[in-house]
Structure formats: C-alpha cells, structure tokens
C-alpha cells in the first residue's frame, strides 16, 4: 500500500485534516454549532465549483468562500439564531449555485463527484505543503484562543462580564471552521464533512474528557477514522469516504456504549 506515492500522500493529507478537524470539531460540538460545519461546506462547494469554472483550484475557491462565510456568520451570529428557514434557503442557494457552475464546467467531468464525495487518492503531493501550512496555522490559532473560547462557550454572560470579546471569538472561530471544512472536504467531500469533524468530537465529549484531553482524543479518533477508512478502501476497493462515515458512526456508538456503562 505504501509503495504508491498517492497512498502516502493520502495518509499525510488525512493526518493533517484530522489534526485540524479533531480540536475544531470538539469546540463545534461543545458550542452546539455542529450544523455550522455542514453549512460552511455547502457554501464552500459553491465557491469550489465557481473556482473550477474560472480555471482556479477548487480548494482555493472552497477555502475562501467557507472562511468568508464563517466570518460572516460570526459577525451576524445573533441574527442567525432561530432563523432555520433563512439558513436552509442560503444552503439550498449555495448548492444550487454549485450545481449551476458544474453544469457549465465541461472540461472536468469528475469534478462534481470529487467535490461532493471527496477524492483523497487524487490529492497532488504538492498540495501537502498548503495543507500542512493551513493545519499548523489552524492549530496554532485555536491554541491561542482556546482558553477564552472555552470560557465564552460555557458561560457567555460571565465571560462577557470578565472582558471576553464574544463577537471577535465567534468570527475567528468560524473562520477556523471554514478552513477545517475546506481541508476535510478534500478527504470526505462536501457532503460528508460532518463525519470527520463532528463524529470524533462528539465521541470524545461523550467519554467525558477535559478540554485538552478531549481535543487530543478527538484528533486521535479522527485520525483513526481517516486512516482506517483509507486502509479499508484499499482492501475493499470501496470509496474511502464511505468507510470514514461508517467508522465515524461505529466510534460514536462505541463511545456512547462506554459512557452508558460508566453511568454517564
């Protein structure tokens, strides 16, 4: 398996995605914003499709649109609360715009499938530099803001009273979610970002770890799912995204079982 360069590239890319998705996902689940990763991946899809249409890399379009949308959601966070119809319409519009761009995209027939369901085996080795830089930037950014972010997530009123800038944290965190979604979409595709970002984090929280251990466990579980998915894909010749999604569900169910046995 490791004799092939594309497999080695895929394993490194999966490691980098798990490194970001685990800790970012832990905060997403803690804050009850799991849906944000789903929303940003949809908006990112439209950006990626538009970038392909203009001859630019899909990852660039995905990343830019997801990060800008994330920051927009952070700025307007109060206005999004309880606006499920509006959010649903924006998601539908984003998917529709992506579909329109792909319709006019005649020179890359497999692009739609790759965007929607991921193409981890198709990642170019040169892309690892970008992914690596983004992963390091994301992890460092989250490390710097994680203490006030934890406070603001658990006790927003008290945090605000203590001088924490809630709006700034919202914007910065959702920008990180945008980057994480872009990285994750490379592995699982737009439709399955949830599996790598939310499932490991939710399982980690169910196991009752503290913040630091919880983020580390979310990373370890995300890595297990991503690498496990790659191995199973190699063995069965089925898509890696399917196996990652399946492993995500199995890991979460196992964590629930353990939590139940421990009486949590």
């Amino acid at each position, binding site marked *: 398996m490791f004799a092939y360069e594309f497999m080695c590239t895929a394993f490194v890319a999966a490691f980098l995605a798990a490194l970001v998705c685990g800790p970012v996902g832990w905060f997403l689940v*803690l804050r009850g914003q799991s849906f944000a990763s789903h929303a940003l991946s949809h908006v990112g899809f439209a950006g990626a499709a538009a970038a392909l249409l203009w001859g630019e890399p899909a990852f660039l379009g995905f990343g830019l649109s997801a990060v800008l949308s994330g920051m927009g959601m952070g700025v307007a966070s109060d206005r999004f609360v309880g606006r499920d119809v509006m959010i649903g319409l924006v998601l539908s519009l984003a998917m529709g715009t992506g579909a329109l761009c792909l319709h006019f995209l005649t020179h890359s027939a497999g692009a739609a499938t790759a965007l929607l369901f991921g193409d981890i085996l198709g990642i170019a080795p040169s892309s690892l530099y970008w992914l690596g830089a983004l992963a390091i930037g994301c992890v460092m950014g989250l490390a710097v803001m*994680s203490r006030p972010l*934890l406070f603001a997530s658990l006790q927003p*009123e008290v945090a605000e009273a203590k*001088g924490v800038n809630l709006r700034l944290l919202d914007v910065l965190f959702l920008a990180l979610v945008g980057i994480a979604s872009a990285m994750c979409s490379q592995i699982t595709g737009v439709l399955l970002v949830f599996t790598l970002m939310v499932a490991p984090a939710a399982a980690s929280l169910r196991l009752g770890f503290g913040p*630091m251990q919880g983020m580390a466990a979310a990373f370890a579980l995300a890595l297990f799912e991503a690498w496990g998915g790659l191995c199973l894909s190699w063995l069965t010749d089925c898509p890696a995204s399917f196996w990652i999604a399946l492993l995500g569900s199995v890991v979460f169910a196992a964590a629930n079982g353990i939590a139940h046995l421990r009486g949590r």
Partner: protein
Amino acid sequence: MITPAIEAGQLTVSYGGRRVLDHVSFAIPPGSFVAVLGGNGAGKTSLFRTILGLNTPEQGHVLVEGQRFGKGRMPVGYMPQMRRMVAGQLSGWHMVAAALRGRVWGVPWYSAAERAEVNAALNAVDAWELAARPVMSLSGGERQRLLLAQALLDHPRILLLDEPLASLDPARMRETTRRIHDLARERGLTVLFSTHDINPLMGFMDHVLYLAHGKALLGNVDEVMTTPALTALYGAPVEVVRADGRLFVVADGGADTLHCCDCAEHTR
C-alpha cells in the same frame, strides 16, 4: 468617609425599549449583604449588567468602589441566572475552571496553583463531590453551587448573584442563603443577591434594595418593607403583612395569599 462598594447616581437604564431604571440613586456600603427585590422586569438583571459594564446607562453613572473600571477589570464575581448549560458532558470541575482567568489568551491548561484555586472555590461552596460528575447529570441546585464556585474565582470583593435561589426547594433556599452569607462574612465580601422572595433571606441581609416601576428604595428591612414605604415606591396602595416571622406584600384588593414579597407586581 467610607467609599461605597457600589454607588449609582441618577442611573437610567432601558431594556427592550422600556425604561427599567429611572434616575435611580443609591450607595451600597462595603461588606453588606443586600437583597435586591422586585418582580419580573423590575430591572434587577439590568442593574447587575449595568454594574458589570455590559449595559450602557442612558443617563447617570454607577461606580464600583468609587471607580469606573474597564469591562472585565472590576473585582466583581458574577453569577448569572441559570439558563441552558452548554457544559453538558464536561465535568463540574472543568466547568468551574473555565472561568479561571478565562479572558487570558492561551490553552486551557491549568497550573498546580490554578488547580488549587479551583479546588478551593469548589470546597468553599461544598461542591467538591460535584467536581467529577458531568454537568448534565446535576440537579438545578447542584448546578447553582458550581456557578457560585465560579463566581468566587479570581478573588472578587463584590458578588452579584442573579436569582441564586431559582429552582431550589424551600429547605435548600435557606441553606444556600446561609452558605453565601457565611462565605461573605468570612471573606468580607459585599453581596447583591437578587430574589423574588425575601423570606429565605430573613436574618441574613443587612439591607434591601427594592426595585419597582423604575424606582429604587434602599434601607434595612424595617425601613423598606413597610406599607407606607412600598406604597410610595409603587405609587399605589400596597400592604406589607407580617405573619409567622414571614413577610408578604399584597396589592390593595389582592384576594390571594401570596408567598412572595413582590405580589404587588402580580396582582396589579
């Protein structure tokens, strides 16, 4: 002259387009235990948020220990009304610890001294047995204790406690009040304790700050909880009834026996 712990001068605050405090002035002596009374919407939470710098007054000012502190820099511990608990699956210890120097950038990794500080806060409110349990498994009263422990972090000199007795049964109300009172006396803290029901605080409070119709009245229980004083505050006939060592406030013509001190708000 002793500097008041909290001083409001002509303080005017609106919430949701309605004026909840209208040119209110008072001075809370340091080290006193003050019951902040008033019905729903009387402005108790708005007053606390204004003291904390989260609401900007339309007019007037509020000083903490004679100064205007920047947001987050005042020596005040705040316990908000208990709403949805996001912490859910985290342990009680981690929920409390999140507030310790929570505004400082960095990772939530706690030094031995910081862990000791969190442990001391939990012990101070007899919540050590809650430390390892997931927050979602705790009762309302147990969660209140964690919030109180959180308010004690960073060595505050003033505590603002917003409805700390909400969701507690009567026996727990008295026990919680006693715990807070003893803690405040031991540490020399000034406490503003908002509540709907004055009776669990009887024997513990030094002063009452009664809010109604945008106005405020501060004094000891015998000065504030009288028929003439509250009638003047409400601007309508109100009767204060003492029975069995308990206080009841009823609006003129109110037929129901109400067990709280703010029934004038409800029967109006």
